[in-house]
């Protein structure tokens, strides 16, 4: 690995100053489970590494039914999985976090880092898109809020400008009779990167089992994670029968633009988008039905 | 007389014969005898005066370990076999 300098600021302002002063030569560090591998491979060669884990604001999980969720960008996946509110109110996002790599990886990796790494196959991003999560970004020019589906701009690329950091992810509190689910396909039972990932969040009108609101996020089937808007819309106002789900699956497939690679063929990925969409909608719906109180 | 079973790809050099009787009492003598009758087989069996490392010799079901020095019995049956590459 090339020589690097390491800084560990304890406030957001400090971090932004450091990152801004080094511009393109600096790279923020969260869990490091992607960045350190990229440094070794020489894919990224920053001179300065700015560790954000010592900044309290990035390490907190704040949830209330009034204000919803504020998920610090550097919170580790294991902390998410061990948080009772996360498991109860955001089971899909929580299971996505709990799917990343091994427990050794989850003890370091963060949802914020997963997003900022900009991988199209990031497990938590489709789950965040399904939940309509927003990213609170701060930089030298001040603060801005970016919808997660707009955050990634290409493989390994995001909207973050030099000096900017992701502070936290903002997600509304779930409505009554709403819930989410994330499913991914991998060849083994653990340790693989998603060949296809599908996140679904649903709100139901319980008596008729009618969909009031729905969002579907797709991973690993395009240059960035995808918000499947048409597929989501196809569920809204409908009863969750086979025809409805089938139509959503068809529309989800239609927005997928996968490639052939060592992880799967494009043909295979398109097929599996349909399979996982059907399964994830069913799983989210089942959870939503049970979520009668909030 | 001992019998040598000729590997199928060498039979084109032995006029199609698949079994040849020999009087040699060592593998060296046996090979010399074969070569005197069928000169082309030499390169397939010998290298620097010994049995090729790529060739294993079976004498009455036992694997040869002495190359040309291995003894051959009155009525032995001898096979030349490709040695297992690496073998691990």
């Amino acid at each position, binding site marked *: *690995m*090339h*020589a*690097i*300098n*390491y800084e*560990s600021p304890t406030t957001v302002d400090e971090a932004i100053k450091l990152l801004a002063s080094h511009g393109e030569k600096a790279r923020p*560090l969260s*869990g*490091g*489970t992607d960045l*350190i*591998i990229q*440094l*070794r491979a020489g894919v990224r060669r920053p001179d300065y*590494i700015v*560790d954000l*884990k010592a900044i309290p604001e990035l390490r907190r999980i704040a949830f209330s039914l009034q204000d919803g969720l504020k998920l610090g960008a550097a919170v580790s996946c*294991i902390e998410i999985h061990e948080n009772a509110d996360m498991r109860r109110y955001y089971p899909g996002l929580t299971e996505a976090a709990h799917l990343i*790599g*091994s*427990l*050794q*990886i989850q*003890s*370091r990796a963060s949802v914020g880092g997963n997003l900022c790494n900009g991988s199209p196959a990031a497990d938590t991003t489709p789950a965040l898109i399904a939940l309509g999560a927003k990213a609170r970004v701060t930089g030298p020019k001040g603060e801005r809020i970016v919808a997660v589906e707009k955050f990634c701009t290409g493989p390994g690329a995001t909207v973050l400008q030099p000096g900017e950091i992701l502070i936290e992810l903002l997600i509304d509190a779930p409505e009554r009779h709403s819930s989410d689910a994330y499913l991914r396909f991998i060849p083994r*039972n*653990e*340790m693989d990167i998603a060949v296809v990932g599908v996140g679904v969040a649903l709100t139901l009108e319980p008596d008729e089992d009618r969909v009031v609101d729905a969002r579907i996020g797709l991973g690993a089937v395009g240059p960035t994670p995808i918000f499947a808007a048409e597929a989501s819309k196809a569920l809204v106002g409908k009863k969750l029968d086979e025809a409805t789900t089938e139509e959503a699956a068809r529309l989800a497939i239609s927005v997928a633009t996968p490639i052939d690679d060592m992880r799967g063929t494009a043909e295979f990925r398109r097929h599996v988008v349909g399979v996982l969409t059907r399964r994830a909608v069913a799983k989210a719906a089942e959870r939503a039905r049970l979520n009668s109180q909030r | 007389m001992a019998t040598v079973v000729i590997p199928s790809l060498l039979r084109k050099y032995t006029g199609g014969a698949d079994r040849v009787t020999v009087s040699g009492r060592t593998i060296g003598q046996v090979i010399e005898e074969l070569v005197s009758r069928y000169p082309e087989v030499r390169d397939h069996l010998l290298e620097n005066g010994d049995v090729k490392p790529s060739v294993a010799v079976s004498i009455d079901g036992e694997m040869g370990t002495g190359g040309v020095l291995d003894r051959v019995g009155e009525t032995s049956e001898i096979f030349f076999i490709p040695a297992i590459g690496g073998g691990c």
Partner: protein
Amino acid sequence: MAKKTVVETTINGESMEFLCEPRQSLLEVLRDELELTGSKEGCLTGDCGACTVILDGRAACSCLVLGVEAQGKSITTVEGLASSAGLHVLQQKFLEHAGLQCGICTPGFLMSAKALLDHNPTPTEPEIRYALAGNLCRCTGYDKIVKAVIDAASTLAAGSKAA
């Protein structure tokens, strides 16, 4: 070259200071600077688990942690598993069940299993397999490793009941 920095940390219960370059991983520091070569390098990408240590109570791949990140942290390596009283139950059970062949993955498996039992003293077989999924073994087919951890868990549980 970036200058070396002093890192203060606790390793296997002893407070320690070491000098390292920012580009050195915790694994390199343990192996090359502190001569704790029990943690092994298998892949340097977090996929094999041979370098697993316990970092502030959590299993982590020491190849994906910078040495400088260890500042103020507490680290347990395989060298810290046994005590003056003898081998840890996990170590004993790995030996009794022949849960190792070449042994290169063993330190990582032991640390992952330790982290599991610290958080969940009575794991089911699926929970054990999930917790060990980040550790690759190419020799054993996992059978005897899983049996060793199951046995260690029940032995520890029995012990704590007795106590």
